[in-house]
């Protein structure tokens, strides 16, 4: 039987609590993994591994967090994500909400895209 949105969220919450050592109540849908929950680069790999185990899914490298986009000179200029870079990010991350980020697409703000809700939507898309 398919999991409900709430069940997916609860399991994602559990994964993030274990991976990042945060409290349940900190893991809200709008919380960002880096700014609010303190995730560092290696934590993203940890989160991917734990999601795979928790949901019995396979996640390819860069599928959930395509941060290699930001290493491409075509996609980043003067500390800002270019239009082409933004399009690439959107294509690679259909599970994320870019509304806020688009207003000021600075590279150092890219962490704002990685919200708990984006992770939940990603898992839902994998499960479906």
């Amino acid at each position, binding site marked *: 039987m398919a999991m409900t949105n709430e069940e997916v969220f609860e399991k994602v919450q559990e994964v993030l609590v274990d991976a990042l050592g945060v409290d349940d109540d900190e893991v809200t849908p709008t919380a960002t993994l880096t700014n609010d929950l303190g995730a560092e*680069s290696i934590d993203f790999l*940890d989160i991917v*591994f734990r999601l795979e*185990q928790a949901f019995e899914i396979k996640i390819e*490298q*860069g599928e959930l967090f395509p*941060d*290699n986009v930001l*290493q491409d000179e075509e996609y980043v200029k003067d500390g800002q994500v270019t239009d082409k870079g933004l399009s690439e990010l959107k294509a690679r991350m259909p599970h994320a909400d870019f509304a806020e980020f688009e207003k000021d697409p600075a590279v150092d703000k890219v962490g704002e895209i990685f919200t708990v809700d984006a992770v939940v939507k990603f898992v839902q898309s994998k499960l479906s």
Partner: protein
Amino acid sequence: MRWMWIDRILELDEGKRCVTVKNVSLAEEHLRDHFPRNERRDSKPTHPAPLMIEAMAQTAGILVGHARQFKEKVILAKIGKATFDCDVSPGMTLFFEANIIRMDDAGASTTGTISLMDHTMGSTERRVIGQVDLMFSHIDQNMRGLEFPEHNFVFTDQFFDLMRNSGIAVG
């Protein structure tokens, strides 16, 4: 120079499991300086927990490196969990068992148990006294595109000597 905190590899099941052993000796210099005291007992030389984490990192690191023929530079990136149930004294023997949970191009996660054989108990029974879960990065595969020296500075001759001395074939 790297201190090895394991004495010998007992088992190495490629890509799955590695078991190592360490005999804690009073001759080791760090035991002259590490005499913690707590509410249960007076101070006595005690093998420090961080060195048991390092021993597990060496055990699991060998396991992860061996799985890819030591072509990757395997770096300890995260200690997910480290729990210890009792003090370890000179004369005791520690066993470190590491298992790979997941591995891909970017790195690996491992789970591990530490067991203790207390020779004063008159038996060879091993008692689990701790758990250490770790994450390793294959640093040449980092997504930030950072570059590192070409030679594998992680797996030095010390590791390969340890493997040979444990009866494990090296490349």
